[in-house]
């Protein structure tokens, strides 16, 4: 065990995978000698050489197009998109190509060897274009797996599992926690299974659900609620697609109440999918409407970031609304 922050944990997972796979490639804007603008790939070029760890030209659609081809060829391709806000030029390559590669070819070809890493999320004074959480755009696309770590330990284990998966994965890294989340992380390899939600805290009165950095907001809100005598069950979804309906609905059947929280705007967000599914799965058990605590339906603002965010206070209020319904 070592103390690592999330960047170090990610770096360690990458280094191990590159040692295991002699052709694995890490590439993207500034990931080479410099080690990435957040330094997640720091030291990798020195270790594995310029052929396997390299800067690309500044073209996200090219990075993903190149990655699709490289993965189809059989190489473990680990591209980085510098900010999730800049993943959209690659949207066609991801949604029409990556996600459909295996299906359209009848499994003649696949890009299961592809793991796209990208920092996402707000709370860092990034304004419109350094704060977005675009998971819902991808969750509506069959064929992709979407993975979100909430801390350093989860990051290393989930990334290792993503790198082993034979399906393409988008690995969303909560940049707000890159350095803030420090914890005990094994130096060797371990994996955390994809597709499984984790019950982070057991509780009886209400279920709280989130993924990535937003889990922290739930924890803070649950602490406030516990002072009111409310016992919260906290679930970290971890894999947003395909998601673990079972774990969530069992919890809601037990508690009868659900608050889902996401950073992204409310409308059409993944919280809506969860609410839609759970109202169906748990209809007779629900004692109050499923609450969604989300970003506003506006672009992500700078000066009003605090007001915009789905913070712990808003989650706490939703808990109370739900309990007092």
């Amino acid at each position, binding site marked *: 065990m070592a103390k690592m922050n999330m960047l170090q944990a990610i770096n360690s997972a990458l280094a191990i995978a590159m040692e295991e796979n002699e*052709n694995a*490639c890490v590439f993207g804007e500034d990931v080479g000698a410099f080690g990435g603008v957040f330094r997640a790939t720091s030291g990798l070029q020195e270790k594995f050489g310029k*052929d*396997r760890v*390299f800067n*690309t*030209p500044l*073209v996200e*659609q*090219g990075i*993903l*197009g*190149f*990655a*699709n*081809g*490289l*993965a*189809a*060829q*059989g*190489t473990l*391709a680990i591209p980085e998109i510098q900010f999730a806000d800049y993943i959209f*030029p690659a949207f*066609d*390559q991801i949604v*029409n*190509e990556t996600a*459909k590669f*295996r*299906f*359209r*070819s*009848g*499994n*003649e*070809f*696949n890009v*299961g060897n592809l793991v796209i890493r990208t920092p996402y999320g707000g709370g860092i004074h990034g304004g419109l274009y350094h704060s977005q959480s675009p998971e819902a755009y991808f969750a509506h696309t*069959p*064929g992709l*797996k979407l993975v979100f770590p909430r801390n350093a330990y989860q990051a290393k284990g989930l990334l290792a599992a993503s790198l082993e998966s*034979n*399906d393409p994965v988008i690995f969303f890294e909560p940049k707000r926690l890159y350095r803030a989340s420090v914890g005990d992380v094994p130096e060797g390899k371990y994996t955390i299974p994809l*597709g499984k939600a984790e019950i982070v805290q057991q509780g009886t009165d209400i279920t709280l659900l989130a993924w990535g950095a937003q889990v922290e907001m739930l924890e803070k809100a649950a602490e406030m609620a516990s002072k009111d005598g409310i016992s919260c069950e906290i679930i970290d979804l971890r894999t947003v697609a*395909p998601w673990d*309906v*079972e774990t969530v609905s069992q919890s809601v059947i037990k508690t009868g109440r659900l608050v889902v929280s996401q950073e992204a705007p409310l409308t059409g967000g993944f919280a809506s999918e969860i609410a839609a599914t759970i109202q169906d799965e748990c209809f007779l058990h629900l004692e109050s409407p499923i609450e969604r605590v989300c970003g506003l339906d506006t672009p992500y603002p700078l000066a009003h970031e605090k007001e915009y965010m789905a913070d712990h206070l808003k989650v706490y209020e939703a808990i109370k609304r739900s309990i007092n319904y």
Partner: protein
Amino acid sequence: MAKLLNVDNPNNTSKNDTLNLEFVDEHALAIPTFKMLDDNGELYKDAQASSMDKETAIRIYETMRFIRVFDERMLAAQRQGRVSFYMQCLGEEAAVTGSAAALEDKDMIFAQYREQAALAYRGFTLEQFMHQNFSNEKDFGKGRQMPIHYGSKGLNYSTISSPLGTQIPQAAGYAYGQKLKGDKACTICYFGEGAASEGDFHAGLNMAAVHSAPTLFFARNNGYAISTPASEQFKGDGIAVRAVGYGMKALRVDGVDVLAVYEAVKKAREFAVENNAPVLIESIAYRLAAHSSSDDPTGYREKEEEETFRANCPIERFRRYMLKQGWLDEAEDEAAKEKIKADVLSALKVAEKVAKPALEEIVTDVYEDVPLHLQKQYEQLKQHILKYPEAYPATASRIEETK
């Protein structure tokens, strides 16, 4: 005059200066078209010597002959409502076959959709073509895509994808992987002059150059993208001239001249594999057919224009060459054509009776394994179909069987 920069130039530009304020002309570079064979199938005087042996020539000729007949018959089948859609290669057979013939089998092919001749050259069988067009259960693609979306892992032919241009950066990535593994192989990437307008073109060519990926970018400039003539597609000198913008070598070749295409691609392949460098090849050949079976060119171009180009037939030109070489017998050629027609017809009759893919295939291959939610959706669908079997005739009867 002092050079602009006195350290190693981080701007990656040539270092010569000028005091004259002059535009670089928009046509500063014009690229000639390489050819070998004249219309009569004779080598031009002073033409490059041909390196194509008899065996290769025959295989090329047979491939083109097959594709011509196959295309005709399939279009007819579409007109009869037997297949839903079709696209012909008419006029571009030499460009596609000649380039495919210049490759090695281990080289990867990323095609656009009009390159069935390359796949045929590699050995895709008539039956395999047919099953795909009928989206039946023997289609490698499990009936999921529209007709002409072929693919074959065994023949190193990446499954066709309709969104244009996406295969261009993919080819660069694939080639990069080949280089890393030390395969001594390359990837060829076909695309139309229309698709070359996509952002993915820029991405793919630049990345191949920067990352030294042995990729052959084969632009089929056939004059049209559906109804849009090349003159409304770009103002530069075709596609080849763009190579210089990427620091990439280029060639332009007469796409109606199979010998020229073959030599050009052979040379480009050699260069690419030996130097780990991409090459851009532009072939000039007119799209003689309609864009697809859904299209009617009379809405946008003159019959007269078509007729002029029809006279310039790549297969006929090569046939004359083959005859002169004594590599082809006219009577046998005619007989072979008749046989292909008959074979196509009977393969068609077989394929259209082959069952649709099993219902299970509606949820497979989305992921490596079928996840829980898709298992559930499949189960619901099955129950639903069993309730209304007459509404889903292609699958209903077979579910009952397997139940």
